């Protein structure tokens, strides 16, 4: 594995560009020692995070007019992605996790993305600079305790 892999991408606020996000994340995480299913979960976590920004940080009428920036970095110990946008503040780390029993029993369709992100990634850190931008940093360590969770974890 190379010592450091660094990639950056800027995409419009449009879900059709999620495939580019998944491709670049896949390109980076496959450089690491992540097993395939772990790599796929990381791709899913980044996909969910960017989808959340598109759905919550920007109003629908601004679709395509604003941009989302992703900076991905991989070293010997971890994969890290920083996602920046200039939309409304939205802190996924502050959202209360749903009571899954109630969530399922009530037949709710939404609200699982953040739960999955926090199950998959080791660190989810959000910061907001008023009037400037949102920044979401997510980290997955290559030797993560969550990697060995099979029953209740993700």
């Amino acid at each position, binding site marked *: 594995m190379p010592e450091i892999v660094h990639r950056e991408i800027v995409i419009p606020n449009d879900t059709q560009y999620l495939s580019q996000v998944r491709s670049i994340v896949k390109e980076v995480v496959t450089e690491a020692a992540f097993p395939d299913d772990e790599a796929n*979960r990381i791709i899913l976590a980044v996909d969910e995070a960017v*989808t959340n920004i598109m759905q919550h940080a920007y109003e629908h009428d601004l679709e395509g007019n604003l941009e989302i920036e992703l900076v991905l970095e991989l070293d010997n110990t971890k994969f890290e992605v920083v996602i920046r946008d200039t939309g409304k503040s939205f802190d996924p780390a502050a959202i209360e996790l749903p009571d899954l*029993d109630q969530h399922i029993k*009530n037949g709710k*369709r939404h*609200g*699982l993305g953040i*739960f999955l992100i926090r199950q998959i990634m080791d660190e989810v850190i959000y910061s907001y600079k008023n009037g400037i931008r949102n920044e979401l940093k997510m980290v997955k360590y290559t030797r993560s305790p969550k990697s060995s969770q099979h029953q209740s974890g993700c």
Partner: protein
Amino acid sequence: MEFSTGKTDGIIVLKLGGAVRAGDNDALQDALGSDDIRKSKAVIIDLSDLEYLNSRAIGTLMSLWKETTSSGRKIHIVNPKPLVERLLKAVGMYTLVPVSRSVEDAAAALSKGE
């Protein structure tokens, strides 16, 4: 995303394949909300060819489970791949929805009232 449906003895078999991503969620919701599914006595969801699904798709499956079981009908999941299996386990669906290895096994279990 790809999907197809079949019907045997009042049981609907819905087969999902490929990947359910942001642009596919409305189509999945429409497929799972069809009259055939609403009127069936049981639903088998064959996930053996499904590689990937996002959180909204999981929510749509949860909603189908809720609708189906609240009307006294049954639902079975068939043979999810490892990624899909882990996601469904993570959100607790495995504690609620029976999982079978094949459509035939699911149909046999349903015919026994399981």
